[in-house]
């Protein structure tokens, strides 16, 4: 199918909206848009960060997911208590694949689930005593933890437990950082508020712990990698590039990160933000309080990597600028080989994305490097500023969908007929059963890393093995297939 014109896209949106009742239709219409590169501001064409409609299948998560799952969870040497009923913690345990180095259960706790396991009794009489006991047990069983965060689940806010008081008492008793996080799931409209709450908790309880302590030796080349959650090893693939160009990475927020790194972040010279949506709050705070500038960067695909490396280097002296050029030159033959191998197999393929808060725009460059085209993209929980940044990345007349519903997404895919859909686990099997190649773009489908030059090679291989998988031709029963043979896939160069 050829690229759609503006009118066709408009007609498609109208057709999809047709099934809704009048009121729902008016509301959903604001969240679906046709990209127009001439616009400076996204609020002219799309509404975002609004409450989902009751009755539609939204794909969003909750504030607890944003705080415990995204921001706090990957900090490996802290124990994160899922305070409340057992399910929230258990069903999200270790699903995000933030890799880390350490001995789980001894000095790192990333893939474990700690919960206060609320029962009816705790709802009636309050759970503060149980929380205190929980912290005592943690200190006995896991004495090498470097701190504890209390991630509130819905009932905590509803029954009005005072987790701050418990934290203060236990903080005195054990002399360890204990952070109460008010990230009850019902707060806000999506996980996005959870990110904000988590950022604010770091700001209030952790960040200033080492203010006035100058014992940490600094260099002019200190940076912090913020908003990289090390999914499948992403942060490691990014870190090697930064170190190779001569920078010193002091902290990783928060993939494979430690609380000590977070406490040292106010001493860096520049904050590098990968996931803008989940960590811009803390970067803005550090800019104001510690005068640390921050920039966004993008390590998906060689074009964007080179752009980002040069952009990062421009904040430093000539030795780093040379370093950036050296890194780009060093990997040039490597990524050109990847493109030469996979581009002939992937050229012209069309992709539809629906991901969280950063990848809907960040991975576009990587697909384009492989000669693919992104024909539709959307955010689960993006805000206006995310769409502002997306408009320029996407082609004209492509689809933009905010907080897309299950029904809309299916209909869009049926009509646009992309060669690949990139979204999450909940969408995966629907589209695979429809015969559309699918990659999970939250967890890299158990692959990764996709960041950096090393990651790009894996990204290209994964896209190829998904799209050109022979299974997609076997979808129709042999006696139902027509005699026409499709052209064979080009062999690997």
């Amino acid at each position: 199918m050829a690229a759609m014109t503006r009118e066709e896209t408009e007609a498609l949106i109208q057709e999809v909206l047709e099934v809704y009742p009048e009121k729902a239709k008016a509301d959903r219409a604001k969240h679906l848009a046709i990209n127009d590169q001439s616009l400076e501001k996204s609020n002219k064409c799309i509404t975002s960060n609004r409450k989902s409609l009751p009755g539609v299948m939204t794909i969003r998560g909750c504030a607890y997911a944003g705080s415990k799952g995204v921001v706090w969870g990957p900090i490996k040497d802290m124990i994160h208590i899922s305070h409340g009923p057992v399910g929230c913690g258990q069903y999200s345990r270790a699903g995000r694949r933030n890799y880390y180095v350490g001995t789980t259960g001894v000095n790192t706790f990333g893939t474990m689930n700690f919960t206060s396991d609320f029962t009816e009794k705790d709802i009636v009489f309050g759970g503060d005593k149980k929380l205190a006991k929980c912290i005592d047990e943690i200190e006995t069983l896991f004495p090498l933890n470097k701190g504890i965060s209390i991630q509130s689940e819905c009932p905590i806010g509803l029954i009005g437990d005072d987790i701050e008081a418990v934290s203060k008492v236990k903080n005195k008793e054990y002399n360890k950082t204990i952070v109460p996080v008010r990230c009850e799931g019902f707060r806000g409209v999506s996980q996005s508020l959870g990110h904000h709450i988590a950022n604010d908790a770091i700001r209030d309880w952790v960040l200033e712990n080492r203010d006035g302590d100058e014992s940490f030796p600094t260099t002019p080349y200190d940076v912090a990698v913020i908003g990289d959650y090390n999914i499948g090893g992403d942060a490691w693939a990014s870190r090697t590039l930064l170190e190779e160009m001569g920078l010193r990475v002091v902290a990783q927020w928060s993939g494979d990160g430690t609380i000590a790194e977070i406490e040292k972040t106010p001493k860096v010279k520049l904050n590098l933000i990968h996931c803008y949506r989940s960590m811009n709050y803390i970067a803005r705070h550090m800019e104001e309080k510690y005068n640390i500038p921050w920039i966004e960067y993008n390590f998906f695909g060689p074009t964007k990597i080179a752009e980002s490396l040069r952009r990062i280097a421009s904040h430093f002296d000539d030795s780093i600028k040379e370093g950036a050029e050296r890194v780009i030159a060093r990997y040039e033959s490597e990524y050109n080989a990847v493109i030469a191998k996979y581009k002939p197999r992937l050229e012209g393929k069309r992709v539809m994305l629906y991901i969280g808060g950063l990848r809907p725009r960040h991975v576009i460059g990587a697909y384009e490097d492989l000669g693919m085209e992104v024909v539709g993209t959307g955010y689960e929980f993006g805000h206006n500023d995310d769409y502002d940044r997306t408009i320029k990345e996407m082609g004209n007349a492509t689809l933009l969908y905010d907080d897309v519903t299950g029904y809309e997404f299916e209909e869009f895919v049926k009509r646009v007929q992309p060669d690949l859909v990139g979204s999450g686990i909940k969408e995966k099997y629907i589209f695979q059963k429809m015969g559309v190649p699918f990659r999970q773009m939250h967890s890299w489908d158990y692959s990764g890393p996709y960041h950096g030059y090393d990651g790009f090679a894996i990204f290209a291989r994964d896209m190829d093995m998904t799209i050109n998988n022979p299974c997609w031709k076997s979808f129709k029963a042999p006696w139902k297939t027509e005699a026409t043979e499709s052209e064979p896939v080009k062999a690997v160069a």
Partner: protein
Amino acid sequence: MPSVMLRKREDGKLLFYIAKKDLEETIESLEFDTPDRWGGEVVLGDGSKYYFEPMDTPPKIPMTLQAKRLSE
């Protein structure tokens, strides 16, 4: 009275950011912008107007300030 975080963009323009409202806009004009008086009415990129209590010295940016929203 929203708290507004002010910061300088790379090209030198002032950015006006209200976290609660998801609003990030450039400042197009500022009523007083001299070394001995700063503040007053500001007009943003989207045309909305806010008001900073005038100060005797310009604030050290980045900084969070209280602003008043002016109706059209």
